[in-house]
């Protein structure tokens, strides 16, 4: 009864820290926390209300907490009105202080001022024609909020209200056969992520997986389910030592212990000669040089690619030197007028049109120019 009363008083006496300031006459804000003196890893809810006071403008806000090592946080709710000129937003955060003493919670707030026309313009865009919202942004400096965090006892592993369930299907197995062992931590509080639950000096082989964590944060707190899956193996009888996890419930301010009693396992021997693997982690029969083969193949592919590119370049260069026959030489070497006409026509150049006309005149009409004269004419046009 005494404790219940204490809890009630504690809840009723949650210190609501409220700061209300007028920011450039455009808006007011209100910051509240459910507790200012929590324990380490105890959930603290923070609400931040922004209320627009200048209704002539369109206001938008960006608010968030600043990441720090001495606390973790998560936004669990945001509610806002739909009125562009009378904006009210409530942000709700769940904070877990991670160290004792004075912990400052830092904030970042940006005020964005815009107009209805700007909003309408940004809405007129579509997927292929995105139109950005033009705003004038102002960074608002909010003072940090201090939590006075109470320390935990040294051996506390879990903070919150948790239960522990475990399952062990068999207590008997053949030598080296695996014995599956699962246990689940379930409850409300700081998500339990425990890496070393079993004692370090165990005398059996332990196969373990990364714990499977399901954590859901809401305005109620964080509900977590963490599954630890492992398998035990040995060639003779062994004992799994008792597991004890010390936990602390900040609401009742009570310490409690989650316990798995020690387990004895009976192992029957097997004929080792019938086993496929007789040696644990046998030495390599031969060195694995497959990486060098892969490296070599990459090298060959690179070299062949490089050489192919070079070969095309060389071929292009040599073919150019072969095919680019100086036109001057071709004209000089032409044996008759028709051959000269072919050469000039093939060149597809308006420069030679007068010479081509003379050639055609000479070949098909009454022109009387000689081949020599025509060649000279063509050479002059070069």
């Amino acid at each position, binding site marked *: 009864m005494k404790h219940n009363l204490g809890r009630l008083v504690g809840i009723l006496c949650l210190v609501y820290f409220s700061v209300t300031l007028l920011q450039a006459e455009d808006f007011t804000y209100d910051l509240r926390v459910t507790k200012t003196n929590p324990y380490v890893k105890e959930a603290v809810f923070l609400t931040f209300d922004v209320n627009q006071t200048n209704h002539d403008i369109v206001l938008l806000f960006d608010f968030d907490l600043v990441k720090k090592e001495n606390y973790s946080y998560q936004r669990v709710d945001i509610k806002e009105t739909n009125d562009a000129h009378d904006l009210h937003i409530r942000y709700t955060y769940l904070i877990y202080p991670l160290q004792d003493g004075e912990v400052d919670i830092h904030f970042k707030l940006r005020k964005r001022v815009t107009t209805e026309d700007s909003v309408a313009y940004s809405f007129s865009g579509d997927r292929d024609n995105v139109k950005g919202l033009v705003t004038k942004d102002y960074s608002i400096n909010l003072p940090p909020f201090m939590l006075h965090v109470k320390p935990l006892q040294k051996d506390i592993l879990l903070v919150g209200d948790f239960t522990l369930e475990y399952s062990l299907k068999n207590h008997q197995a053949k030598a080296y056969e695996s014995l599956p062992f699962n246990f689940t931590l379930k409850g409300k509080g700081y998500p339990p992520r425990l890496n070393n639950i079993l004692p370090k000096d165990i005398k059996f082989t332990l196969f373990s997986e990364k714990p499977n964590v399901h954590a859901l944060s809401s305005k109620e707190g964080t509900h977590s389910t963490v599954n630890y899956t492992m398998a035990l193996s040995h060639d003779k009888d062994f004992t799994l030592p008792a597991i004890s996890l010390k936990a602390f419930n900040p609401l009742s301010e009570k310490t409690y212990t989650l316990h798995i009693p020690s387990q004895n396992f009976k192992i029957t021997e097997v004929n080792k000669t019938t086993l496929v693997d007789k040696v644990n982690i046998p030495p390599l029969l031969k060195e694995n040089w497959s990486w060098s083969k892969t490296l070599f193949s990459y090298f060959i592919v690179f070299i062949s690619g490089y050489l192919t590119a070079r070969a*095309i370049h060389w*071929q*292009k260069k040599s*073919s150019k030197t072969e095919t680019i026959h100086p036109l001057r030489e071709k004209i000089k070497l032409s044996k008759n007028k*028709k051959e000269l*006409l*072919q*050469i000039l*026509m*093939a*060149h*597809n150049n308006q420069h030679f*049109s007068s010479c*081509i*006309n003379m050639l*055609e005149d000479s070949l*098909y009409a009454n022109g009387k120019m000689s081949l020599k004269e025509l060649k000279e004419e063509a050479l002059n046009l070069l």
Partner: protein
Amino acid sequence: MNIMNEKIVLLKKELSKAVIGQENMINGLLIGLLCDGHVLVEGVPGLAKTTTINALSRAIKLDTKRIQFTPDLLPSDIIGAQVYNPKDHSFSIKRGPIFTNLLLADEINRAPAKVQSALLEVMQERQVTIGDESFKIAAPFLVMATQNPIEQEGVYRLPEAQLDRFMIKIVVKHNSEEEEIDIMRKAAKKSFDPVQAVLTIDDLQMLQKEIETIHTDPELEHYMVQLIAATREPERFGLESIVDSIMFGASPRASIDLYKASRAQAFLKGKSFVSPSDIAEVIHKVLRHRIVLSYEARAQAITSDDLISTIIETLPVP
């Protein structure tokens, strides 16, 4: 010079008011217009392609339209569609921009294959079917399609069968320095003279008929067929050096277009007969998009123009 040639000179003079230089493109367009063919133009932006076709439409009093091809274009955006009228619950035909005399299909390779096919089908058939109704495209009908050679991403390359429907392919090059100075000055002063209508559609039809009277010697006809055949079987004409460079030669449509274009070229030069030089002046335009180059040729940066030049140089003229 007969009266018809005078009209051509007049037309060219009128075009030169709006387009400085680019004789090759203007000649190609005129050949296409006179031979009832279509023209594919390849060139970087800003080389007066649209200006030329607009000037041509004004100089001959022709209707002109422009379609900018984009990846989201639909065939109905070109040919038209049936539109539902909710007032009387009936469908009416909305004709697309294809119903014109001169159509500038800008950046044709930006649209997907189904849109290209829709246009190229109309180019061939000169008829459009919307719903149950078929419509003839009024003559003259010239499509000038442009391609940008520098951008290769996000483009749909025209297949060879479709390319074959273009009578000629013109590669537009930059103007000479002198011409560019002239363009700069005129553009800065906005002193381009307005293009006046100097030809009518009737004149154009008469010019088209006049071309049919241009004489082509049977030996030259044979020469033209040999030039085309050399693209298919180069080894038969002693062109072993280009055998590996050609994957597919030109189609019979190329022979027809070479024949027509040579006559138009002779006409544009004021001649009454075709000579080998007329053939040589148009053969690159007619064949360059019809020869399919092999991988080896492309690797060695050999172009279809190089191969055509080799063929002309090797094949004996009549």
